[in-house]
């Protein structure tokens, strides 16, 4: 396969994957079990989710390591197995991707505040992110993919930690805009771009988010702030609502495909889905903007 960074720079657009956690629950992940711990004993369902996305047209699948930092794994009693969990998840993703898709080493937020709001010092956060990223790099991921960030300082720490161990692998980052057009910590899309792009990330963007409109607005504002920036859009499948005791996200695959076209027009070079999105959403996105028509 072509080198990930050159594909990202030269196109065509890369279709990413959709939600992981909800798909795993459908595949048998017990209530309250951390996916990262579960996959150590149950790799097959995780491979199954990755495969479903690859078959739907994803050319970038993300490792099941959103909670793969020491702080998050601690809650599942797995903090001394950071390297093992991340390596295993990366190997599972690689196995599912084959030669059909790139593997993004997924890095999520710590789940705790940094100082001064919380107890974690900036330097400590950098080390925690570097520890996870290092394991993902060793397992051979194509990109270190940081997502769902809200705090600009934590985002910087994640980028710094990832870059410390990246060894030439690109680092990308997306934030979640869910509060009056900003992240819940008050970060504007413009600020995110102005602070994080100069650090040398290969792409920046928005994922999750309160609504498709808010993510769209964030992408538009990022594009306006830095027209040359390579952007990423991986929004939720709309808003959750309740149907017969089940939470359903209201955007259809066709809605997501329509949005995907708009994101590409705004400079997005990676497009996928977040909470509530399934392989059907990804298939529709791939048919709209992807290379691999399924």
């Amino acid at each position, binding site marked *: 396969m072509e080198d990930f960074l050159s594909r990202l720079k030269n196109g065509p657009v890369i279709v990413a994957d959709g939600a992981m*956690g*909800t798909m795993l*629950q459908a595949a048998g992940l017990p*209530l*309250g*079990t*951390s996916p990262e711990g579960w996959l150590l004993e149950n790799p097959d369902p995780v491979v199954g989710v990755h495969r479903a996305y690859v078959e739907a047209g994803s050319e970038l699948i993300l490792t099941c390591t959103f909670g793969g930092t020491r702080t*998050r794994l601690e*809650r*599942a009693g797995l903090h001394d197995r950071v390297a093992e969990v991340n390596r295993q998840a990366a190997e599972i993703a690689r196995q599912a991707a084959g030669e059909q898709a790139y593997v993004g080493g997924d890095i999520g937020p710590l*789940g*705790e*505040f940094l100082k*001064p*709001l919380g107890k974690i010092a900036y330097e400590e956060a950098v080390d925690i992110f570097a520890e996870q990223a290092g394991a993902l790099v060793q397992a051979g991921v194509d990109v270190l993919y940081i997502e769902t960030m*809200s705090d600009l300082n934590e985002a910087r720490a994640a980028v710094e930690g990832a870059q410390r161990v990246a060894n030439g692998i690109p680092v990308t980052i997306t934030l979640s805009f869910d*509060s*009056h*057009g*900003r*992240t*819940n*910590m*008050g970060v504007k899309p413009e600020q995110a771009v102005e602070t994080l792009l100069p650090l040398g990330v290969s792409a920046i963007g928005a994922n999750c988010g309160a609504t498709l409109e808010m993510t769209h607005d964030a992408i538009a504002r990022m594009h306006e702030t830095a027209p040359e920036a390579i952007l990423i859009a991986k929004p939720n499948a709309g808003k*959750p*609502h*309740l149907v017969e*005791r*089940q*939470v359903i996200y209201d955007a259809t695959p066709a809605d997501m495909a329509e949005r995907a076209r708009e994101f590409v027009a705004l400079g997005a070079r990676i497009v996928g889905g977040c909470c509530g999105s399934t392989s059907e959403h990804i298939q529709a996105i791939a048919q709209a903007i992807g290379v691999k028509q399924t």
Partner: protein
Amino acid sequence: MSDILNQLHTAVVAGETDPARELAEQALRASIAPLTAIDEALNPAMEIVGGKYETGEYFIPDLVMAAEAMKAAMQVFEPALMARQEERQVLGTVVIGTVEGDIHEIGKSLVATMLSAAGFQVHDLGVDVPASRFVEQVRETGANVVGLSALLTTTMLGQEAVVEALQEAGLRDQVKVVIGGAPAGPEWAETIGADGYAENANEAVGVVKQLLGI
């Protein structure tokens, strides 16, 4: 209102911890009654902070810093209240936690912080809390409010389990149950027989007060 209380109010709204502490000390030295300071400066300041959060002028860091500033001032006032054999009015007793199987901490803690700043006595049970723990704590503390957080579509069912456990324990009528978390909503509250739903930490204060008729 005195100059000192005005400045204290401003310091809390701005989330300035050290000035808030110093101004609280100044207030005591100027013989301002601690309850007066709380009623005239601290409580209204937190209401303004909540309002700014609702309108998108303030975000989570502003809420947390303001609550910290309020706490710093309260730490000065509390010994003074004790010495005068007075107490800040306790609006109610809340048992709060993230339900079993769910380890999301931040949202729940913010709600706890804001309720505490508003004058509730808050017992925060942390995350991944089994229904039986909520029941025990309600029994032990005589709480009249239970706050249940769940951030996952699957763990939301844990909120229902707590409502049922409270029912079985014969404690359901003693408490108002308020739920929150990304996938939850007012319909879910209704479905599981909770009393209310709050979208965010500031709204939680309003919902709880309303349910208690405060």
